[in-house]
């Protein structure tokens, strides 16, 4: 065959071109040039088009079957039966109530923190909550059940033991029931992240009533409408530094750190993630003085802090 088989590099390039074609503003001329440069480019690109078409033209039944084969997170623990009932009951209650999440709800919340504020709350059952920046939640403590509705932001709960009244944090995506414990729950772009520091938590996806995962110290899970995804474990000592007013990170991309600092800033710092790619950071950064955190970054990395416009500082590569 003229030209032969595409090389491994050509296959990678063809895949990258397909991804670019999925964007509204892709460069048709550049793609055309690439395709013309070598017949193997076109071969790899067209074969990929064939694979995508083959998936795309599947009837609804096959699509659903593929979805069930691969989309659901696999390997749920099987030892959850005795506990699932309680969490399910919370779920059903919430469901019957026809729960709504109007955008205004956070402003009427029982407890809330401002941007940049770290707030501690002691509940009447002596459980302790720490609210992260820009967080809102409702508290309902009753004889048989203790329930926190996390409306926005992130909360760390240190639960006072009470076997007669299960303690559950609820978001639109999930329920996370403490089995006597310290854990944090955070809402993020339509998903909820649960991190356990002590003891155990039973986290259940609300979209899939029977899907639950038991998390141990250092374990994390992200729960969205599509189910539960386990994340890599984290050092519990780093995970709760924010409750003391510090952000502790180890080998994070700089842009992730800036995004996290921005959660604590009324005037976000601006930056271009692409330009900062490859820069990684480890360390402790003060959350009550994020300007100082930014200055520390500028001092230790090849970046500069541009305060030309105090309303919106900019971090850029030097």
């Amino acid at each position: 065959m003229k030209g032969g088989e595409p090389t491994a590099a050509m296959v990678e390039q063809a895949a990258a071109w397909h991804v670019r074609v999925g964007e509204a503003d892709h460069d048709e001329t550049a793609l055309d040039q690439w395709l013309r440069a070598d017949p193997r480019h076109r071969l790899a690109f067209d074969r990929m088009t064939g694979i995508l078409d083959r998936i795309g033209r599947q009837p609804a039944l096959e699509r659903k079957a593929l979805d069930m084969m691969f989309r659901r997170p696999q390997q749920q623990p099987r030892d959850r039966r005795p506990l699932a009932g309680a969490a399910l009951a919370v779920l059903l209650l919430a469901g019957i109530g026809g729960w709504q999440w109007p955008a205004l709800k956070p402003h009427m919340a029982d407890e809330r923190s401002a941007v940049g504020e770290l707030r501690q709350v002691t509940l009447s059952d002596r459980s302790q909550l720490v609210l992260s920046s820009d967080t809102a939640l409702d508290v309902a403590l009753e004889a048989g059940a203790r329930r926190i509705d996390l409306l926005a932001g992130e909360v760390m709960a240190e639960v006072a033991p009470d076997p007669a009244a299960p303690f559950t944090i609820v978001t639109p995506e999930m329920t996370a029931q403490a089995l006597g414990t310290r854990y944090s729950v955070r809402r993020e772009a339509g998903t909820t992240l649960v991190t356990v520091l002590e003891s155990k938590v039973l986290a259940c996806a609300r979209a899939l009533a029977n899907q639950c995962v038991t998390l141990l110290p250092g374990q994390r899970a992200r729960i969205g409408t599509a189910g539960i995804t386990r994340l890599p474990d984290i050092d519990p000592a780093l995970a709760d530094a924010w409750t003391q007013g510090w952000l502790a990170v180890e080998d994070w991309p700089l842009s992730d750190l800036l995004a996290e600092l921005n959660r604590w800033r009324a005037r976000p710092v601006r930056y271009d993630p692409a330009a900062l790619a490859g820069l990684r950071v480890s360390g402790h950064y003060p959350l009550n003085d994020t300007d100082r955190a930014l200055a520390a970054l500028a001092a230790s990395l090849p970046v500069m802090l541009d305060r030309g416009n105090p309303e919106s500082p900019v971090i850029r590569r030097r």
Partner: protein
Amino acid sequence: MPAITAPDFDAFYRDHANWLAVWLRRHARCGHRAADLAQDTFCRLLERPDLSMPDNPRRYLATVARRLLIDDSRRQASERAFLEAYCLLLDGEEAPSPERVAMAVAELAALARLLEELPPKPRRAFLLNRLDGLSYAEISAELGVSVSMVKQYLARALAHCYRAAYGPDAA
């Protein structure tokens, strides 16, 4: 190396059939399935283009049997998923015809072979994009990763599917 003759094959079968049956029963966990797969494994040997006896017969048989076992598990998983999907989407309808099931299983197993060895995140990104038509930004929110990571996932998934379909290991 000499070509296989009928007596060779008989001897080969006698020497290894029992061993293969035990190997398959241990790996297939179902007697009937193991017996079918043992037959298929010996058939593959006869269908080989180079017509010589393999140098290490048991390693060869185990390699072929393992591949058949994987193909078979993939078809079973495909059939289970298709029937479940049928129950969910067409509840109360008549059961699908055997031809419809066979068609779906063949297609799903072929697609599963492309997708199964992908790490979970790139695969989910790919399926959200191709099955649900989610934009890169929507996938980024769903998976909790940056848009540029989503693009990396998608490119990786597509290159992986390509290699599974056209690479040196393609069936």
